[in-house]
């Protein structure tokens, strides 16, 4: 236990020494996926016996952590990990259907901030590998058939542009409201329609493109502020 604590402290110290900035985001995320929309719309239109319709997967929460390496230039780089969660729930008599969608992104971040000119404005370009997991719950339980949980995993690439405005909280601590727009041109998720509409390639393709926007807050820790 002692060695774990010691290692963690050491890593944090090293991290702070070489880091320009740590960033922790929390945001509302709006998602648009044509293929998933189509599958849910088909699910809704094809089941007249369900009066309460399944909402589209569009509103979610996102959180991410970024680590920007120390650099004296305006353009810095780092790494970013993010997690997003979306849910769609429709409650009908004897049939409460919930779709749960998770995203995990691991990306490379380019951070631009010109302190002299922009006075706190900054922008990030994040290029990530993205993975998704789509699950279905019926009546509070994971939907299981053939003794396996109904699920669809996906993999793809994502590009995201983010802009924020930094407000000083105290010394090395900052808070910034931000907005971002992201695009996943290709997310290969061949089983999604089977989870949503219980068919394969009847109504949609085995991949989808995703467009998303975010609005949220970032907490910044800038351990070594020389200016």
């Amino acid at each position, binding site marked *: 236990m002692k060695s774990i604590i010691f290692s963690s402290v050491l890593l944090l110290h090293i991290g702070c020494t070489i880091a320009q900035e740590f960033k922790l985001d929390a945001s509302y995320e709006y998602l648009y996926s044509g293929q998933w929309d189509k599958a849910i*719309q*088909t699910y809704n239109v*094809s089941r007249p016996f369900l009066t309460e319709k399944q909402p589209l997967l569009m509103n979610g929460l996102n959180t991410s952590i970024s680590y920007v390496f120390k650099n004296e230039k305006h353009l810095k780089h780092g790494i970013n990990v993010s997690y997003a969660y979306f849910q769609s729930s429709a409650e009908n008599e004897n*049939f409460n259907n919930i779709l749960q969608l998770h995203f995990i992104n691991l990306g490379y971040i380019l951070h631009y901030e010109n302190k002299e000119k*922009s006075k706190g404005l900054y922008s990030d370009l994040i290029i990530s590998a993205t993975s998704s997991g789509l699950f279905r719950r019926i009546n509070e339980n994971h939907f299981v058939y053939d003794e396996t949980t*109904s699920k669809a995993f996906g993999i793809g690439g994502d590009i995201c542009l983010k802009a924020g405005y930094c407000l000083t909280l105290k010394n090395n601590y900052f808070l910034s409201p931000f907005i971002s727009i992201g695009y996943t041109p290709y997310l290969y998720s061949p089983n999604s329609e089977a989870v949503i509409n219980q068919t394969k390639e009847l109504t949609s393709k085995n991949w989808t493109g995703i467009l998303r926007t975010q609005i949220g807050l970032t907490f910044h820790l800038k351990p070594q502020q020389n200016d």
Partner: protein
Amino acid sequence: MNRRQFIKQSTLLSIGGLLIPSALLAACRKETLFEDVTYDGKVIIIGAGAAGLYAAYMLKSKGIDFQLLEASSTYGGRLGKLTGFANFPIDTGAQWLHGKNSILGDLIKKSKTNITLDDSETKFWFNNQLIDALPQNTNIFEGEELPDISYEAYALQNGLGNEYKYIIENIAGDQGAAASRLSVYGNNKDEENWASGDDDFKFEETYFDLIDKQIASQVKDQILVNTIITKIDYSQSEIILTDSNNNTFNANKVIITVPISILKSGDIQFIPALPIEKTTAFSKIGMDAGMKVFLKFSNRFFDQNIIGGAVCAAYADDSIGKAQNDNILLAFIMGEQAEYLTSLGSDAAITSALIQELDIMYNGQASASFIASHVENWTTNPFVKGAYSYSTIGMGDARKIASESLSEKLYFAGEAMNTNGHHQTVHGAVETGYREVINILTDIKK
């Protein structure tokens, strides 16, 4: 503009640039397809089987005028219910729910319909004895790069000799086909799209009850039975349908859900004639003979499943999953075996052939305890003419071509028209029913 104004305006523009399109996009995104589509025309559905009934249910939910025309004296198509023969209701047609991950799986949950996993045990009739396991693996029909040859030929290529003939007939029979006609490649491609699950379930009541209570009950008043459509004239803007009594029906769009055997046999005349590629596609989709015989005994001398008989390759205890347990053995007969038994000419002869085979398997116990039989021969039903569709050798994309709509007037549904691997099944038929309603709505929206 000073720097502060610039920053302020840039921020506002950025937020506006993102949020306003998002809000607009959200407003355009509807939960259901075709929420605003209305239609003044009339849709006629030919065939009140699972596909036709579900298409009607969908049209009703969208407020579209429709009528169902059914050739036989009742609705349900290849679903049927027999009462009074045993102390539980019997499925004379489709019986097993193939996987819970389907639209009907949802309906079953919603309606709290009782189903039971069929995990009954199997014995094999092999080299004139009943055994628990076969000497060789027969699970050879799935994988990559399988050839487009018959199950029978592929089994022989893989060392499953003549002693496995009726074991292979049973495997092909599950697909409604003779082993000599079912394509290894084609069927494997179908399996790749299968999404509903591999477990099979039985209904405590019957499959017919589910469709009757949950779907047919919604549209019963629009079904016209004993209406055998013989001609469809779609040469004018209004389609004219003529039945065997020379009655005519007018419609703007027609959904044809009759079995593929009916389309293949030319029982319906189309004016103008269907394109050659369409009729060729019909001819490539297989549909073999099929029958179900229910044998009632005073003793339960039989095993839960008996696979590999020369007269019937698949027997099954029909009381599995039922609330009561009369001794009913189902003989599930497909392909060449069904053709042979049909050729015997009478229900009595068919029953006798089956009892003789069971007597050999169980040392005369079948004839000693036999009480009665019920033969449901789907092959001799003039509005069905077989079991269900299967993938033939060299079939290619025949299902896709066969299922394409014509001139925004004729739409094709039914299990054989399912292009996503769920053909042969009731839930697959239902999927084509709603698919064609979606196609109609799409055409209307144009």
